[in-house]
């Protein structure tokens, strides 16, 4: 064995010259090279990686080793997960419309749900029954445009059919989404660890200019407002809006719709409003007590002409602060999943088949048929039950009657039929009476 050794002083290996490297060989083959820039190149390396420091990020290429996510830091956005891994806003892509796909004459006392599930049309209650704008609300099918190119095939469209160019002071129209209390837990509202909000959506409007949104906490009567701008008429534009966290007012602590299955928060889109919504002189851009006169400061009047339309789709609400570049993609749910989530708030039996059976039971007396009906899902709260159309009981013969709901519960109801001439003790099937448009429904909307 031969050894190059220096015991008392530095040992210098010098490949002197402009292009000369120090080369290590084994059995006649090069195994390592130290070039003039100090770069060591070898066929293999061994030893602890703990000795390596200041590695340039560009050198970390190829397949990375398995690393626990707990060791990752500096990740933008929030560490909180979406509830159940599903989007907080149900039917944000406007795909589900159980009630109808188009309703005309909405306005002047029609606050409620008309077409697209979970999306509520709202106007203030007092003094708004006989004046103000009217609209046709439609579940619109998209076949072109930027929202369609982003994967959305449905939208909620508001078509102004009666204009109110000069709104009365207290007039105002809104599209809003009520979020169940259990679905906003991740925002930790009212705690020292309250999270910020990001609202994103696709919007198209005839009117250019400023529009307002409100995020409200009805249980504590607090809200925050923000604006977005329609830059180009009748063109789909994507908006991303950041809203502050609120360390005041926990959800479910108020006196209205208390509890996790109550109205946690509401996301509101203004269409137009009279002076009562803007006379505060500014927009309420920080969380504070509900103040009507700062809700729509600067809002354009989308109802000042019957030529105006306003469309929206792809609504998402995220925990944390995102930009257009960092926003998580919209979570497209399957139609079935989205429909099932909507039915927690509203369901309607299918139409289209004459004499379709609803339930079976017994002819309790000559005037009453008693049956049970179980809902498709457990509902958010005890629902309002409704029946529309003609119904009968088949109990040997067919007897028409009136549907009466009693003992309404979270998952079932006693579906009775008030009749005359029934045969006590017979079995009976309640069905529509050759009325393919007849239905019953349960409504536990917020």
């Amino acid at each position, binding site marked *: 064995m031969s050894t190059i050794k220096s015991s008392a002083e530095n040992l210098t290996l010098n490949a002197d010259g402009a292009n000369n490297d120090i080369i290590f060989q084994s059995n006649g083959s090069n195994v390592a090279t130290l070039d003039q820039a100090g770069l060591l190149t070898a066929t293999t390396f061994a030893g602890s990686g703990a000795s390596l420091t200041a590695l340039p990020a560009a050198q970390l290429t190829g397949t990375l080793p398995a690393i626990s996510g707990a060791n990752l830091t500096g990740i933008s956005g929030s560490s909180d997960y979406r509830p159940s891994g599903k989007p907080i806003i149900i039917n944000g892509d406007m795909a589900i419309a159980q009630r109808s796909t188009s309703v005309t004459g909405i306005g002047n*006392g*029609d*606050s*409620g749900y008309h077409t697209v599930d979970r999306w509520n049309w709202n106007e203030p*209650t007092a003094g708004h029954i006989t004046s103000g704008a009217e609209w046709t609300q439609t579940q619109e099918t998209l076949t072109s445009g930027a929202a369609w190119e982003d994967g959305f095939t449905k939208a909620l469209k508001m078509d102004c059919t009666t204009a109110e160019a000069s709104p009365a002071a207290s007039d105002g129209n809104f599209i809003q989404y009520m979020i169940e209390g259990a679905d906003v837990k991740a925002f930790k509202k009212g705690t020292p660890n309250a999270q910020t909000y990001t609202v994103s959506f696709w919007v198209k409007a005839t009117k250019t200019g400023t529009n307002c949104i409100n995020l409200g906490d009805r249980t504590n009567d607090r809200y925050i407002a923000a604006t977005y701008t329609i830059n180009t008429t009748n063109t789909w534009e994507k908006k991303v809006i950041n809203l502050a966290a609120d360390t005041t007012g926990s959800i479910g602590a108020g006196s209205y*719709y*208390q*509890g996790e*299955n*109550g109205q946690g928060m509401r996301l509101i889109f203004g269409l137009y409003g009279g002076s009562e919504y803007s006379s505060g002189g500014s927009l309420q851009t920080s969380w504070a007590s509900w103040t009507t006169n700062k809700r729509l400061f600067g809002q354009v009047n989308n109802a000042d002409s019957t030529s105006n339309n306003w469309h929206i789709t792809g609504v998402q609400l995220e925990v944390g602060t995102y930009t257009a570049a960092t926003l998580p993609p919209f979570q497209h749910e399957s139609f079935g999943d989205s429909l099932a989530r909507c039915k927690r708030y509203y369901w309607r039996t299918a139409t289209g088949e004459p004499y379709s059976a609803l339930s079976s039971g017994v002819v309790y007396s000559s005037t009453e048929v008693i049956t049970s009906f179980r809902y498709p899902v457990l509902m958010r*709260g*005890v*629902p*309002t*039950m*409704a*029946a*529309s159309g003609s119904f009968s009981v088949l109990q040997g013969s067919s007897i028409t009657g009136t*549907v*009466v*709901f*009693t*003992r*309404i519960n979270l998952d079932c109801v*006693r579906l009775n039929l008030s009749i005359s001439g029934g045969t006590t003790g017979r079995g009976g099937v309640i069905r529509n009476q050759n009325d393919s448009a007849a239905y019953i429904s349960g*409504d*536990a*909307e*917020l």
Partner: protein
Amino acid sequence: MIIENAKYHNADSDTNTGIFATIDGVGCSVPLDENNRHYVEILKQVADGDITIAEAD
């Protein structure tokens, strides 16, 4: 929300168990539950003096 013909009903008991009403033109049965938006609205319209609720038969 247009509420008409509101009337309490009871089923198999002497106490009211719900309200029959026509809401926006559709016959409905409304539970006596303050987490139900229709019941909340009925109470509001009663308080405002806009409607009354008839007693059960």
